[in-house]
C-alpha cells in the first residue's frame, strides 16, 4: 500500500501545495478559490481529493504536497469516518506538522457533542491542530483561507521564522486531553 510521503519529491522554488481532502466535496472548492485569491507572493497550488489513497495514475505528475487538510463536516458521521480511514494512508512524516484538521459546523446545536469530541481526540492523539471554520459566509471562508495559508507557508518551509513541527506544537497540546472525560 503506497503511502503518501512529503519528502519523496523535490520542492519547487517559491511554491507551496496544499491538499484538501473532503468526503462531501462541498467546502473544498470554495476554500480553494479563496486560498488562491488571497496569496499573491508565492505560488500556491491547491489539490482537491475526496479521500486517500490518491489515484496512482497521477502520482508522477503530482507535485510535492506540503500540507494535507482533512475537512470534516460535523453534520454527518460519514465525514468523520472517511477522514479516519484516509488517515491510515498518510506517511508518518506528515504527522510532524504537515497535517491539520478543519472542522465546519462546530457551533450547530443539532450536532451531537460526541462528534466534535472525537475529532478533537483524533487530532490530539496525532498531535495535529484543529481549525474551526465557518463556511457559510464570505468572511468565514476568507478567514479560513488565511489561516490555512499561514500554516501552509510554515509547512512548505517558506516562512523564515518557524519550522513546522515546533510551530504547530504551539497550537496543539502535548498531552492527551484527559479533561474531556468524566471527572
Amino acid at each position: 500500500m503506497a503511502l503518501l510521503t512529503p519528502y519523496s519529491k523535490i520542492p519547487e522554488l517559491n511554491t507551496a501545495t496544499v491538499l484538501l481532502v473532503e468526503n462531501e466535496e462541498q467546502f473544498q472548492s470554495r476554500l480553494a478559490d479563496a486560498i488562491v485569491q488571497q496569496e499573491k507572493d508565492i505560488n500556491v497550488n491547491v489539490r482537491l481529493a475526496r479521500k486517500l489513497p490518491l489515484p496512482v495514475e497521477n502520482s508522477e505528475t503530482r507535485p510535492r504536497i506540503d500540507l494535507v487538510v482533512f475537512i470534516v463536516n460535523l453534520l454527518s458521521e460519514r465525514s468523520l469516518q472517511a477522514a479516519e480511514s484516509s488517515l491510515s494512508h498518510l506517511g508518518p512524516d506528515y504527522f510532524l506538522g504537515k497535517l491539520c484538521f478543519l472542522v465546519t459546523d462546530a457551533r450547530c446545536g443539532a450536532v451531537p457533542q460526541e462528534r466534535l469530541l472525537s475529532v478533537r481526540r483524533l487530532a490530539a492523539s496525532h498531535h495535529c491542530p484543529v481549525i474551526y471554520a465557518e463556511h457559510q459566509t464570505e468572511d468565514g471562508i476568507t478567514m479560513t483561507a488565511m489561516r490555512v495559508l499561514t500554516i501552509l507557508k510554515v509547512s512548505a518551509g517558506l516562512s523564515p521564522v518557524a519550522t513546522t513541527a515546533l510551530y504547530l506544537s504551539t497550537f496543539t497540546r502535548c498531552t492527551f486531553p484527559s479533561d474531556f472525560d468524566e471527572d
Partner: protein
Amino acid sequence: MATVKWPHFFHFSAPHSVVNTPAHRPDTRRSKSYGRSCVEPPSLFWQTPGHLTTLGHRIPTSRRAAKSHNITTKVDPEQVALLIKNEWKLSHVTPLYRFRHTQLKLYSKHLAAFIIAEKQQGVAVEVGVEAGFKVTFSAVLGIAETKEDAETVFIQVHSKPLFSADTPKAVWRGWLTCVNGDPEYLRSLPPDFVSLPLFCSSGPEYLTALVKSWFERTFDCSFGSLYLNSTMLNWLAALWTGCHPTSNIRYLKLAWNMPSQPPLDIAYTVNPQDAWELWNSIHTEDSTDDRINIEEVQLFMNGLEIHFFRHFKIYLSAGTLTKVSTALGSAHHDGKIKIGSSDYITTLLTLLTECALMKTPV
C-alpha cells in the same frame, strides 16, 4: 541548518511552554467552546463549587436499561391518559424562581388574566370566537422519581365559549417535569429555585408563546427549544428495541434525510423481532448488570446502517436521522415527541430531562 529562535509571540492558549510539560496537567481552565449555543459562562461562576459546570461535561456513556413501570399504580390513570394522547413539542427551561406547588390556583387565575389581556391588546393574531379562557394548573403526582425531583405540573387552557351552553374545551396543554434529574445539580440550586427543566406543549403556537412569556415574567426563567440530536435518537431506538420482549414494539421505524440533490427521505422500517435479535446479540441480557453502554448503541445503529448499505449502497451516516418511532412512542429531531404507551414513560422522561438539563445554559 540555522538555529531557530523560539517564537514567543505565537503563544495562544497553551499555559505551559513546550520545554517542560507537566506530566499531569493541572485543571486550571475548562473551556466549553464546543457545540453549545450559548456564550461561555461569566467568570463569576468559576467561584462557586464546581457543581454547575459538571453538567456540560458529563455526557453519559451508560444508562440503566428501560424498566417497565406500571405507572398507573402511582399516577392517576386519567392524567396519564392526557399525557399519552398528544404530540408534544419540547423546550428546556431554566430553574423557576419562587414557584410554589401550593399556589397553583393562584397561578391559574393569573395566567388566564394574562392571556385575556394579551388577546385584547391585539398581541395574539388568532381570530376566534372564544370570549374567555380558563386555565387549570394541576400537579401530577407520582411521575417524579427521586426525592430531589420536583412534582410535575400540568397546565390546561380551556376556551370558554360565548354561549355558556357549550362546555369549555381544552385548546392548549402543557406540562413541566423533572424525572431523575442530576441529583448534584438539583441539590446545588439556591433554595428558592425549583428546577423543572422539561417543558412539553401541545396546541396553537400563540398560546404557547403567551404561556412561556407569562412564565418568564413571573418566575424569571427562560425557555429554549430542545432539539434531539442523533445521539439521543440512537439511545431511544436502542432502549425501545430492548423493551421488545416485555412489551411488543410492533415496528422500529427510522427516518433519515439525505443531503443529496434533490434531498432524499428514507423511511427504514425494521421488523421488531429482527431488531431485537440484533440488539440482543450486542447487549446480552444480563440480569445483574442492566446498564447499556454508548458503544453498544453505536454498534446497533451501525449494524442497521451496514445492512442498509449492503442492499442499497447508500451510507446512512452521511445523512441525518430525523425520526425514531415504535409503538412505545416516537421522537422527532425537531424536538417533538409522542408517547405511545404508559409503560416506559419513565425511561423516556429521564432521557429527555437529562437532555434538557444539558442544554439549559446554566
